[in-house]
């Protein structure tokens, strides 16, 4: 399996945080 480098860690973190942020804002709109 190909090694994950620091850029991949960055991409994963950014995508997860972005996704969670979008969910938070989306949820707040409907509360």
């Amino acid at each position: 399996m190909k090694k994950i480098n620091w850029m991949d860690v960055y991409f994963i973190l950014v995508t997860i945080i972005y996704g969670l942020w979008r969910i938070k804002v989306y949820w707040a709109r409907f509360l």
Partner: protein
Amino acid sequence: MLCVWVSQGSAKNIVSGWLKGEWRESSFFSRIFLATGAVMAFGILFCALYAALLPPHLVQESDALNYHYTLPRQHLILNSFQHIRWSSADLFPLPLQFALAPYWFVTALPNKFPQFLFLLGIMMVVCRLTRRFRAGRLAVAALALFAVLGSHNVGIQMGTAMLDLVICYLFLASLDSFLDGNIALAAVEFSFFFWSKSFVPFQMILITAVMFLSFKALRVFDFRMISWGVGRDIVLPEAREYFSRSRKFLFAVAALSLLIGGPFVAKSLYYSGTPLYPFGAGLLKFNEGQGSVLGQPLGEAAKSHIAMKNKYGSGRSAGDFLKHFWFIAVPEEGVNNKYDYPVGLPYLLCVGPFLYFLCRSFSRKIFPVIPVFVAVYWLVWWTGTQQTRFLYIPIILMCVVVISGLKEPSFIFQGAVLLALLLNLASVTRAHRGDWGLEPVQTLREQDRSLVALNGSYVRQEQRGYVDLAFGDAAFAQFPVNATVEKLPFIIRY
């Protein structure tokens, strides 16, 4: 553009060559990525095309209805270039609007199809630039294309009448034409870009000066090599060629500016005492009958236009600067944020590697032209109106530089780009689905429907002369309009 490219057989040759070469050698995951990305990209473009076939009516098209469409149409109706005295925006440089007006108003209702063609143009230029910096690989170009199409701020203007994507295309196309050696075309594209908005000349001159001075300063620290992006360095014979092209380019832009920007500069000088209204209104006096602009409606409107600068963003402190790298990308409340449009995930994916590549170039004593341009452009943007619609150029260039600079884009990066495409497909669909199945006239605002009805009675009754209206966003009017109710900064009393 598209027809010329296709008719030259370029598209057919590239696609058939790619199918025989790269596609055959690509892995199963790459094929899935390309196929999935292509399906979502077509979905986004289909929504944008459908929206582009309708007349302007959306809330995000307010500037287009306010002055991009209204003013050229009024000038065509009046058959005159003279200042429309109730409009302060009439003193803005409007060559782009005047150039597009014959296409906008050729249909029964004003259309926005040209803007969709420019969106396709951005896609083609992104592919060309990425292939240029990454030695012809189509899969990498497709990745850059998906990143741009997956950007939320691009999605917001797709299929609309707004002109920021058109302006972005003009700059990117100018860069592409310059790199291709087509100086005449590069100069035409850049001249229309240069005169597209009042602040662009200041912005471009400042960016050029800062880049030149920083290059000179860095040479003291033994910076000798230059590169366009993060790929190979520019060797001396190429550098001489680019320098020679630059001189011809600047001469051509200066000459074309007399034709393209000249009439608008002259009008602005005559009526408001500045070549680039609203900046410096009243500084000079060219009109004998003109008193001091300051205190007059034009002066008040100029102040109001400039004050819009602080309407966006969350401040200008060092902390705000650091935070903005995140907050421009995400919605805050509802769908927008303090910077107007959220930029989206592809920018966030690219900004980290971009900063890394920039620092790496500096550590190797290489001056990377496009990354430095992006950084300086960003800093100049920070000091002005902090709206993300003015960041199309640096963000798209950032994506091109990063994607062409990655040794081998990982499946994680590709997966994140696909996610961005999916989110943008959902956004674009949600934004435009309310208009699906409606007749064009059914999508119009109530005010615009009444203008269309008024057109009919104006012609039937063989009326002549101005019609007084309480508003100035009269893009659908086929008669001369006099806006009577002041609404700063766009509508002034005179």
